[in-house]
């Protein structure tokens, strides 16, 4: 809903162009964001306020505490919103800081007009760049003197209605606007969030947007406007993934103690909502649902809701191996939550693409999970919710970049896999050349990718299946081979390890009659930069099957 806004109508002033000359670089903005000094101000005597102000005063030039994932990541927002002139005008008209409007707009909609306005004539969940909803929208529209319809569809009216509403809230909270007052109270009310932690997160997200805006607005050569200290952690420190925020959900139970409870599949979901809505609901006992993790829209934050060792509630389906390349059919009929780790992503099945930053953070998270739990990084073990539950689920949808995603998970874990099929390879790093006489098959399960190729050994064969991998720099690598096993396989399949210079480093024999579907180490060698390769030879005493499935190269 929030990611699918239509383009802003022309005519409203707003400059999405490049930053003005002299504005700080991205690096400079990041530095200021993470090292912003706290303003030395008198403040209301809440404990938190006193403590934080005291801390900031005690060390006026020390950086504020790093804010978890966001601290070393690119800023959330662009320098200029398409709605800046509307924020400024509405702010001046209703005596609300335009940056507050801008920050709320960023958090609510990423400065997009929420789509579907014409479809709803009644009481929608949210409208416009300010995500006004329900009675708040009606009240804001009345206060701003615009129609409800205009407040839904017209950006200027929408922002004015929000400003008028904030103005009213500020008045009801008896804010003295001639002095600095806690607009946070007003913003918290605007958020409509009941949960205290949810309100805090909302405020933190608004702050992140505002802090950035303040830094960006600083003229060249001057100190950035001091950004507020981020609030104390909620950030980081999750038990199984330290970069994530720990937001414990009550919606879990124990995994079975027997083999059905051994976690070995990661399930990828989309929330069909924004991030805050997603985790807020999944920590509410009323939802009767959860996931182990939720990744936000741009990857600047992830939450852990349930310990990995516990059974989160993220998939209804009983396992059916025919939906998963006939992998682990002994688990058929077992409830899938028993042995899976669920990762939700803010967003929608229907969105056209997923931000690269979200994919990257998700990949880093899933690398961590698979490494810690010994889960293979392939398409049987990192799967879609919709794949395992096709009757009523499609998430994460057709635009989840599966091949690139698994490659990123592998890369985060320091490995590259060369499949027998180009479709599953990153052509910059991996390539396979299998003679056309080898037969493609997927009849024996537990292959890597979409299948494998096989051939009968022949004493006179002169070629083999070539798995090539490119190294940018010389260095040691450990190689592992994978096959599908069967009694007709070769017990002495020969893998020749050959450098880019043509030097054969070793010929390693493996017994393919057993051990299918797992990686088997060939050895560790130092390779030169360039395309090195492993050749699975067809030449041997005749009559055995050799299976070319995949090669793994790891640091």
């Amino acid at each position, binding site marked *: 809903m929030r990611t699918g806004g239509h383009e802003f109508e022309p005519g409203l002033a707003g400059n999405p162009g490049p930053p003005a000359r002299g504005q700080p670089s991205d690096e400079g903005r990041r530095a200021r964001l993470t090292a912003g000094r706290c303003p030395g101000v008198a403040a209301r005597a809440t404990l938190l306020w006193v403590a934080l102000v005291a801390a900031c005063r005690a060390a006026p030039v020390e950086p504020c505490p790093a804010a978890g994932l966001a601290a070393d990541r690119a800023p959330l927002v662009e320098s200029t919103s398409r709605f800046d002139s509307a924020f400024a005008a509405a702010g001046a008209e209703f005596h609300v800081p335009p*940056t507050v409007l801008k920050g709320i707009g960023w958090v609510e909609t990423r400065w997009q007009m929420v789509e579907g306005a014409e479809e709803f004539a009644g009481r929608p969940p949210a409208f416009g760049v300010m995500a006004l909803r329900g009675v708040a929208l009606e009240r804001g529209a009345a206060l701003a003197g615009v129609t409800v319809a205009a407040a839904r569809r017209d950006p200027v009216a929408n922002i004015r209605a929000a400003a008028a509403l904030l103005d009213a809230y500020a008045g009801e909270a008896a804010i003295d606007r001639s002095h600095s007052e806690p607009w946070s109270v007003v913003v918290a009310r605007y958020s409509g969030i009941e949960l205290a932690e949810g309100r805090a997160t909302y405020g933190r997200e608004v702050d992140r947007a505002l802090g950035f805006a303040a830094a960006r607005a600083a003229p060249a050569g001057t100190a950035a406007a001091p950004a507020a200290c981020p609030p104390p952690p909620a950030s980081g420190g999750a038990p199984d993934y330290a970069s994530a925020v720990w937001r414990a959900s009550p919606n879990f139970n124990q995994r079975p103690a027997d083999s059905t409870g051994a976690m070995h599949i990661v399930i990828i979901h989309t929330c069909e909502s924004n991030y805050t809505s997603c985790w807020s609901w999944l920590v509410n006992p009323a939802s009767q649902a959860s996931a182990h993790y939720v990744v936000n829209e741009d990857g600047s934050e992830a939450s852990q809701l349930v310990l990995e060792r516990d059974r989160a509630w993220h998939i209804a389906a009983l396992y059916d191996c025919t939906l998963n390349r006939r992998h682990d059919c002994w688990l058929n009929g077992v409830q899938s*939550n028993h042995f899976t780790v669920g990762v939700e992503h803010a967003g929608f099945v229907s969105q056209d693409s997923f931000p690269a930053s979200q994919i990257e953070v998700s990949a880093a998270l899933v690398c961590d999970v698979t490494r810690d739990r010994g889960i293979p990084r392939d398409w049987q073990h990192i799967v879609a919710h919709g794949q395992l539950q096709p009757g009523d689920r499609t998430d994460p949808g057709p635009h989840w970049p599966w091949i690139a995603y698994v490659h990123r998970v592998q890369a985060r874990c320091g490995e590259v896999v060369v499949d027998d099929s180009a479709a599953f390879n990153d052509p910059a790093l991996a390539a396979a050349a299998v003679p056309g006489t080898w037969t493609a098959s997927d009849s024996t399960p537990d292959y890597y990718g979409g299948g494998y190729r096989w051939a009968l050994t022949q004493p006179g064969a002169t070629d083999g299946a070539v798995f090539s991998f490119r190294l940018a720099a010389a260095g040691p690598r450990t190689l592992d081979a994978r096959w599908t096993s069967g009694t007709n396989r070769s017990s002495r399949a020969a893998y020749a390890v050959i450098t880019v210079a043509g030097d054969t480093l070793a010929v390693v024999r493996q017994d393919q009659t057993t051990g299918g579907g797992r990686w088997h180490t060939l050895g560790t060698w130092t390779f030169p930069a360039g395309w090195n390769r492993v050749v699975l030879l067809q030449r041997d005493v005749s009559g055995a099957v050799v299976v070319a499935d995949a090669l793994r190269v790891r640091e």
Partner: protein
Amino acid sequence: MPWRAPYLALSLALLVLGACQRDEPRQRVRISSSGANAGVPLLVPPGSQDTGFVGTTSAVHRPRPGRPPRILRAVDARASPGYDRITFEFTGDSLPGYHVEYTSGPVRRCGSGDPVAVTGAAKLLVRLEPAQAHDERGNATLTERDRTLGLPAARDLKLVCDVEGQVEWVLGVAVAGPYRVSELAGPARLVLDVRHGQ
């Protein structure tokens, strides 16, 4: 010029710090909760006293892809002459897609996968999509999520799914009799009538 930089900086600091304060006023955005429309008479469509409607026992499927999810704010169940009526009321004037079907298999909660039992000889599934029975802030818009109805046909009504844009109910009915599904506007409602007896 009221928005000078120091003022802004101060405002921003207060904005963030104040978000953690405990004494701030709260805005309740819950649209409808306990009682689920109790005591509020619902409009009934013309012909609602049609006690002899034919109906169907087959699946009724009306997909409406897209987003955002429609928010389910109230569910009402009451007996009428000849049938029981379940009314699902949404915010706004548009309905989600729906799929209504008798099922013989076990019904499971979509999160935990736990089986859900209802009374009655048959189970009628009502799936609404895209829909949710909670608001954008993680607050439930319905508090009665497992209800004993005790009506002549409709015995139990349990919410088995409310996540990822999908809301699913299971209705325990006395016998797998004919039903009909109709749509009403102002506000948007989906009406499920289940005939009494055979």
